[in-house]
């Protein structure tokens, strides 16, 4: 699925520079305040700065040497800076991604049509795209860049959308119907269209997305809020631990320096997750953007991880757009080769995908041997519901649906062969479409057309099933055909002969059972269902109404994108969970580093608790806070890339993550602090 995910190095130089500047700007307490964990670290840094100043001026040694205090102040400052950097780099990456999209829509000339009186008169003036407002109408001709998102109100055009989607094949857009929407920044390749602007400048989805990534309008998602509460709770618990410790130490006549208190506190509070939390959230949206999905809110990405049910259109998602001929069934008494020739002949000039597939199935040799000289082509018409060819020798070959051909056959007084009728039924019940062929009103056989299920789609659905997501196929086919394809593709359920309101009802029904439902759609008649669904993904090629109704827009118009979106959502939550676990598990080692260091001067017997055999109390405290600071940048790549999701079932996933991030979180700091201590000991 990652076919077009744009690969950008995690730390691109220009982004790092930008993020570096931003991490200082974010030191502003008014901004820090929104992250309670890191805010307390900033306060700690400030306190230590004051203590350092005091030790310099007062020449008292009760609080340790100025150099020691200064070092701690500096490390704490770095801790805050690292956390800010994590957030800034995530923002910078998201912004860079958004900018590359935005570039396409920078100032372009627009041929705006000005209304005069009540009538539109073709008075066209060239204005800047930024002057276009909602409701304005402009025209675009071959070679023009479309200046703004809008809806075609007149004309048809081929459009190159590669700037947005990366897909080089041009697409056709026309007024009316579901393919009327155009995106700013794309290029008209042929023809001329009249377009009405649908968004105010600065309010397009992309603009909204950029604002989300930049943090200006980023709101915390429900899970993020709950996690922040939990982390704030931990922070408060450790405030209590540290403040009360002062009194215990007084009782035990064990003086503890302010530096030690602040260090203990900073080490115990979950700075790792606290520092990376917003970076993880931004990176989640950024990943969505890299998958060419514009989300209207961070919440939508999160919800995607929770999805229980996904509604997928059959055509284009599960099957390749069109049916293909898969087999020729000649009627009894008809020579197979002759039948195939006849079929190929009747389809040679047929430009429909079905027709092409018949010729393809017949084989190149057959096709070459045939000639359409002087033949009259009969195109498919709604009236006859057949198509075919009338040859110069008077032979009339027709192909069409069973009842249409039967009518012809009956008219000629021929009996419809029973075995052919049986074949027709069999094909239908196997999910195929029978195309009956007649020659001069006499049935010669049946061409079997089958839906071609996309390769690899079954595995995708298996993967979704393992994630706990139910897939539902939506199709206009009859229930028999639908069932066959559903089974073959491995979807869990299907809606056959679906009308738009069926989708809506199905979504409501699932939601009533407490499930979260996603669907993808493009048409205006999908809009209510898109709005009803918990995650509604509108295709970029879809109508404006559809895009407004959904909460995501897929720039690639790829119906299987939902699967990717689910994984992005799950990754987002998982990354938060695992880093929280890691952060909390780290406390075990930090306790064993700092607590003995606090007391061993006054209570030498507690040296036994120094199980890591750290060099001295000062080196132990320094090592612990250095580790605490360094672990933040060390985990930035993980926060940005996200923890890999494997659909192995929730329990197995928990076991795996608990092992890696829980047990790892307990062991890694023991090792890290010891190593840092070995280095620090050299300098003390």
């Amino acid at each position, binding site marked *: 699925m990652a076919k077009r995910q744009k690969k950008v190095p995690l730390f691109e130089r220009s982004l790092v520079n930008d993020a570096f500047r931003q991490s200082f700007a974010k030191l502003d307490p008014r901004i820090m305040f929104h992250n309670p964990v890191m805010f307390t670290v900033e306060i700690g840094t400030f306190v230590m700065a004051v203590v350092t100043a005091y030790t310099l001026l007062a020449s008292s040694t009760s609080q340790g040497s100025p150099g020691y205090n200064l070092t701690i102040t500096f490390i704490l400052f770095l801790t805050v800076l690292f956390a800010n950097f994590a957030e800034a780099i995530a923002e910078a990456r998201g912004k860079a991604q958004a900018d590359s999209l935005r570039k396409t829509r920078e100032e372009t000339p627009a041929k705006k049509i000005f209304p005069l009186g009540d009538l539109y008169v073709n008075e066209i003036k060239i204005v800047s795209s930024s002057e276009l407002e909602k409701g304005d109408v402009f025209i675009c001709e071959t070679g023009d860049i479309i200046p703004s998102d809008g809806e075609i109100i007149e004309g048809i055009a081929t459009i190159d959308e590669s700037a947005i989607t990366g897909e080089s094949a041009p697409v056709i857009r026309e007024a009316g119907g579901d393919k009327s929407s155009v995106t700013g920044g794309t290029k008209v390749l042929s023809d001329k269209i009249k377009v009405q602007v649908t968004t105010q400048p600065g309010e397009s989805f992309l603009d909204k997305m950029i604002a989300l990534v930049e943090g200006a309008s980023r709101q915390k998602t*429900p*899970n993020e*809020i*709950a*996690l922040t*509460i*939990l982390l704030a*709770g931990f922070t408060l*618990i450790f405030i*209590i*631990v540290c403040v*009360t*410790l*002062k*009194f*215990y130490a*007084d*009782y*035990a006549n064990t003086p503890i320096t302010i530096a030690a208190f602040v260090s*203990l506190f900073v080490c115990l509070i979950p700075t790792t997750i606290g520092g990376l939390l917003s970076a993880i959230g931004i990176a989640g949206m950024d990943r969505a953007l890299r998958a060419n999905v514009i989300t209207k809110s961070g919440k939508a990405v999160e919800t995607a*991880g*929770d999805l*229980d049910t996904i509604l997928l259109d059959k055509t284009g998602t599960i099957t390749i757009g069109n049916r293909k001929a898969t087999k020729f069934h000649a009627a009894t008494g008809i020579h197979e080769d002759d039948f195939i020739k006849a079929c190929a002949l009747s389809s040679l000039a047929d430009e429909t995908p079905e027709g092409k597939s018949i010729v393809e199935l017949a084989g190149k040799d057959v096709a070459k041997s045939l000639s359409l000289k002087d033949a009259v082509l009969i195109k498919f018409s709604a009236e006859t519901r057949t198509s075919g060819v009338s040859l110069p020798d008077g032979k009339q070959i027709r192909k069409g649906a069973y009842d249409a051909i039967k009518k012809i056959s009956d008219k000629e007084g021929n009996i419809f062969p029973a075995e052919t009728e049986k074949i027709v039924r069999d094909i239908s019940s196997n999910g195929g479409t029978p195309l009956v062929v007649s020659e001069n009103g006499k049935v010669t056989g049946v061409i079997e057309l089958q839906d071609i299920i996309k390769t690899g789609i079954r595995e995708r659905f298996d993967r979704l*099933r393992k*994630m*706990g*997501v139910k897939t539902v196929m939506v199709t206009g086919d009859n229930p028999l055909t639908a069932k066959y394809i559903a089974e073959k593709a491995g979807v869990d359920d299907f809606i056959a002969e679906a009308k738009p309101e069926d989708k809506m009802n199905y979504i409501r029904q699932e939601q009533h*059972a*407490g*499930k979260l439902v996603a669907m993808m759609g493009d048409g205006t008649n999908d809009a209510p269902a898109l709005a009803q669904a918990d995650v509604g993904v509108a295709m970029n090629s879809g109508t404006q109404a559809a895009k407004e109704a959904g909460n995501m827009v897929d720039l690639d118009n790829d119906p299987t994108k939902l699967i990717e979106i689910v994984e992005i959502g*799950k*990754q*987002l*939550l*998982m990354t938060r*969970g*695992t880093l929280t*676990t890691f952060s*909390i*598990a780290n*406390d*075990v080692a930090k*306790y064993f580093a700092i*607590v*003995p260091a*606090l*007391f061993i001067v006054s*209570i030498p*017997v*507690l040296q*036994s*608790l120094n199980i890591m055999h750290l060099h001295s109390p000062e080196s132990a405290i320094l090592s612990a806070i250095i580790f605490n600071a360094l672990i933040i940048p060390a985990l930035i790549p993980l926060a940005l890339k996200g923890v890999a999701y494997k659909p192995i*079932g*929730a*329990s197995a*996933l*928990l*076991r795996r993550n*608990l092992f890696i991030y*829980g047990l790892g979180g307990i062991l890694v700091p023991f090792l890290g602090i010891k190593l840092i201590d070995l280095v620090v000991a050299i300098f003390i």
Partner: protein
Amino acid sequence: MNSEIFGVIFMFMATVVLAIPFGKYIAKVYAGDKTILDPVFNPIEKFFFRVSGINGTKEMNWKQSMVALLTINLVWFLLAMLILLNQGWLPLNPDHNPSQTPDLAFNTAVSFLVNCNLQDYSGETGATYFSQLFCFMFLHFVSAATGMAAAAILFNAMRERTTDQLGNFYNYFIKSLTRILLPLSVVVAIIFMLNGMPMTFEGKDTIQTMQGDTVQVSRGPVAAMIPIKHLGTNGGGWFGANSAHPFENPNYLTNMVEMIAQFLIPLAMVFALGFYLKRKKLAWMIFGVMTTGFLCLVIPNMIMEQHGNPEIARMGIDMGSGAMEGKEIRFGTPASAYWSILTTVISTGSVNSMHDSFMPLSGMNQLLAMMVNAFYGGCGVGILNFYIFIIIAVFISGLMVGRTPEFLGKKIEAREMKIAVMVTLLSALLIKGGTALACYLFHRDPSLPWLNNTGFHGFTEMLYQFTSCNANNGSGFEGLGDNTPFWNISTAFVLILGRYLPIIGPIAIAGILANKKYIPESAGTLKTDTLTFGIMIFAVIIILTALSYFPALALGPIAEYFSM
């Protein structure tokens, strides 16, 4: 020696074996199914409700239940104060003991009301038969039933449906009394009396010993009180020495029965949850986590106590029976060590040996048992405390599997986290803050006559007192001179907060969750009845609760241990 270890193992196994069917019975009682005692008690209950003007079948939401709970608790508090302040002239006072001072009465009333039974008085001199029965024993019954009724509301809220109708508090309360606590109490009382526990209204007897000394022997209707003292995990004993007293615990058999009695309902509640929700695997998971925690505490304790006090061993004597200071011959070291952890993991707080004289790390394990307060936990409230840990563990591990956390089909969101965090914070604040306050006062004025032991051990005595109060446990490092206005009043406030918020918090979470949409399970749903999730809860308990006391414990028992 083997027979002593064997006795302990038997006690544990026997409790588990009894708790499973009893849990099934409790589940039936709360589900309103037919049970064997219906013919006897149904009419009595109806009479109770009719006379009180209560509609026992009216469904309440969680807020209504909590209001009812708090109101009736307030009534009991006032009643208890009234009795204790006037016990001197009230009847049934053959020993002519005086009324309690206001601060002592406040502490005692609160302490019994909240199922803690911290006793800053001594039963022989500080209470009368009237206050023992009408105040203490009464509160033994009703405070236990309060906790159980709260647990029943929790059970009801955890069912798979969306509702705010969570049963009737009064109904659960009365059912807990009549169907569970009362019948068991009568049975246990008979066993006790057969084994020589006194049941008399006569006052002190004066005897002459063989050596010719004149000694007064306190007695009383002990056998009525001691069964409910244990069944309700109350722990407030008749005599000062609690269940170490030969009249309150005459022999090894009564010792076994007392231990099984205090353990039975907390354990059965876990199984009852499984039967009630038809999620037996969940119950076994909870049982597994609790038992692991319990064993991690009790086994080291038994080993350390059996090993004895190294300072005394240095005198060169026979240390065969372990650390015998504060322990009784008829129970022996293993059963005493086992009891000391059992009484602290569940919130009984009765003792058959003196915790103050335990080895330092044994004392630490007793503290940890109360700090966690959810390895089994008190009568009904244990499961409420554990519920908070489940919520936090579900939240973290739910995120870890990439899904908005949900427990039993209900999404856990910011509001629930807020309450869970507040409850966790509260216990940290009460224990650590209370101890800090005491340390501050003592540091300012070391002449305060509080501590029976100096140094590290003295610190542990203060820490133990607040820990015991917050956990509503009631056991103590009794060396602490705690009948002073400071201790009486400060601990009373800790007791109130440590009781009602940890009841209201979980019930509020459960009530809010019950009202949420039920989400059916899927392959992506985190299973909460697995070993992995059990490990997760255990880790959350250890890291969040136990480890946060590490600095404090380092200054108390750990420092004392290393200085030995």
